[in-house]
């Protein structure tokens, strides 16, 4: 093959440029923080930057609930989605249930009631969460509804005892990736505000891979033969809150869901909430 000088020059330039870009990216990404024992240290305050919590599948912008009262503030923004391949492989019954959920999603969504979101939904809500990593356990504290979970590391003997809204999490390290198996989740949680759902049989395998100092590549594979024809996966980056003053605050939303849940039983004329 004949290679001209111009092509060689162009190719060399491209290689150099690519190398420089990689170096720049590495410098920007920084080194992965590590614990004294050499494991990646995932501790910190993190948040996904996605609108997939409206709908994990690709979707266009649309009306939200109560457009007469809320106008554009309740509208649903478009999203590329986070499902690999685009769509969730529902079986027939699963898709029928999803459609029923979607038709009345605002009222049926467990988050409207301030119920705990389950996994993986907790990881892409528009709320920060904090990872506190110790050797035997990793605690993930979610600001939304204080939906916290303990991840047991290298303790496979600890199994799910009873179903829970946030499930039971067992983990191990695979190189620099924390692999978490989440089982025993209540069937009541959804994946988003669009009615995407699962059954009690779902097992979620999460993979948390640090890609630098300030972001983690997150993947979750859902297996649930009751609802899906095949396992399916979501993936998205999670970003560190780098403001050194950042901290989780409280969002005890039980209080804010009371009128939705119990309002029909309120004595007529009784004010909502405490006096100012």
């Amino acid at each position, binding site marked *: 093959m004949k290679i001209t000088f111009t092509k060689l020059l162009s190719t060399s330039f491209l290689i150099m440029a690519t190398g420089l870009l990689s170096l720049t990216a590495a410098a920007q990404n920084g080194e992965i923080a590590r*614990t*004294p*024992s050499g494991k990646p*240290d995932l*501790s910190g305050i993190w948040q996904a930057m996605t609108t997939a919590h409206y709908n994990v599948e690709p979707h266009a912008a649309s009306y939200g609930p109560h457009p007469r009262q809320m106008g554009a503030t309740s509208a649903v923004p478009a999203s590329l989605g986070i499902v690999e391949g685009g769509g969730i492989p529902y079986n027939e019954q699963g898709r029928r249930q999803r459609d029923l959920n979607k038709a009345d999603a605002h009222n049926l969504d467990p988050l409207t*009631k*301030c*119920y*705990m979101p389950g996994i993986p939904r907790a990881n892409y809500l528009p709320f920060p969460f*904090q990872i*506190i*990593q*110790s*050797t*035997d*356990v990793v*605690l993930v*504290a979610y600001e939304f*509804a*204080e*939906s*916290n979970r*303990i991840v047991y590391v290298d303790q496979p003997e*600890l199994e799910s*005892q*009873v179903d*829970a*809204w*946030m499930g039971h999490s067992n983990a191990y390290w695979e190189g620099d990736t924390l692999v978490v198996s989440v089982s025993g989740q209540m069937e*009541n949680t959804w994946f988003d505000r669009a009615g995407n759902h699962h059954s009690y049989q779902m097992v979620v395998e999460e993979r948390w891979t640090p890609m630098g100092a300030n972001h983690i590549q997150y993947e979750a594979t859902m297996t649930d033969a009751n609802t899906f024809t095949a396992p399916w996966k979501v993936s998205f980056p999670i970003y560190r809150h780098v403001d*050194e*003053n950042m*901290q*989780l*605050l*409280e969002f*005890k939303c*039980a*209080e804010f*869901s*009371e009128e939705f*849940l*119990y309002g029909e*039983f*309120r*004595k007529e004329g*009784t*004010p*909502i*909430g*405490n*006096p100012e």
Partner: protein
Amino acid sequence: MNLKNLFIFSTLTALSGVALAQSDADYEVPITEYGQPDLQGVWNFSSNTPMQRPKKYGNQEFLTREQVEEAIAQQETRAAAADAIAAQRVVNPDAPDATDNPGGYNDFWLEVRGLGETVRSSHIVYPLDGRVPAAVEGAPRQYGGLGPDIPSTRPVRYVVGGIAKAGPEDRGLSERCIVGFNSGPPFLPSLYNNNLQIVQSKDTAVIMTEMIHDARIVHLGDKPELDENITLWSGDSRGYYDGDTLVVETKNFNGLRQTFNSTGANKDMILTERFTRTAFDNVDYEFTIDDPSTFTDKITAIVPMTKLAGQIYEYACHEGNYGMVNILRGERMEEQRAAEGGSL
């Protein structure tokens, strides 16, 4: 081991506390990989010790052997009486209760019999008489409980009971699943779920209660104080290690909870907690309440915590709060029937 035997075992174990204390003097607190005293694990703070000291004990902080034996005898008498009532119900399950009150909890739920040290005469160690100090004049008082509602005005700052049933805000905070009756801070031994888990990392410690799954994040670094306009049900916690002790200072409470002992609104409260591991299976938990707008003096209490070889369970209170629906709906039905001239 049934609860009664567990209580006796715990009490007798505590009687030999001097010997235990001597052996524990040699105890070396393990350290985390960051060189901090390792407080991690699941801990239980059940207790049968009263928070306030019975007046007959004066400034006596610990019970004598005779006083403990007397307490055991009283406990056994009460347990035998309860067993006799339960046995009668087995013989005749249809026997009417002595009262119309169906009761709230049976022995299955109760953790009132301590798992840890039981020879203290009270948890409160300051003031020295073990009693709650006088309240500041005008400090609000509000009393809840499992009995009939006691009319009062919102906000309801106590945890159990209610002032009315017009709306959920008329009920106690634990009935609303906003805070638990022992979710703290501070942690006060109560009926059940007296469990918490401590997790430590380089610059953070977390104290997560089973009750209401509250994970209180304690910042160990130099993070600046939170703006005073940001108030929280569980306050804002900053901490540091003092030797083998984790010291936690918490403020920015929202004023919608009582300070202590049915008194006050905790907006001005500064809470200092000290977690000290004294043995493999014991953490001494000490807390000091400083709220000059509520009490004329500080209050300090010590509650031992016992290590559990188990997991914290998810206490999904709000998700299962059928009680609130039934409380409010039942009241509306009563009102409706009364308006129609009938009764339930």
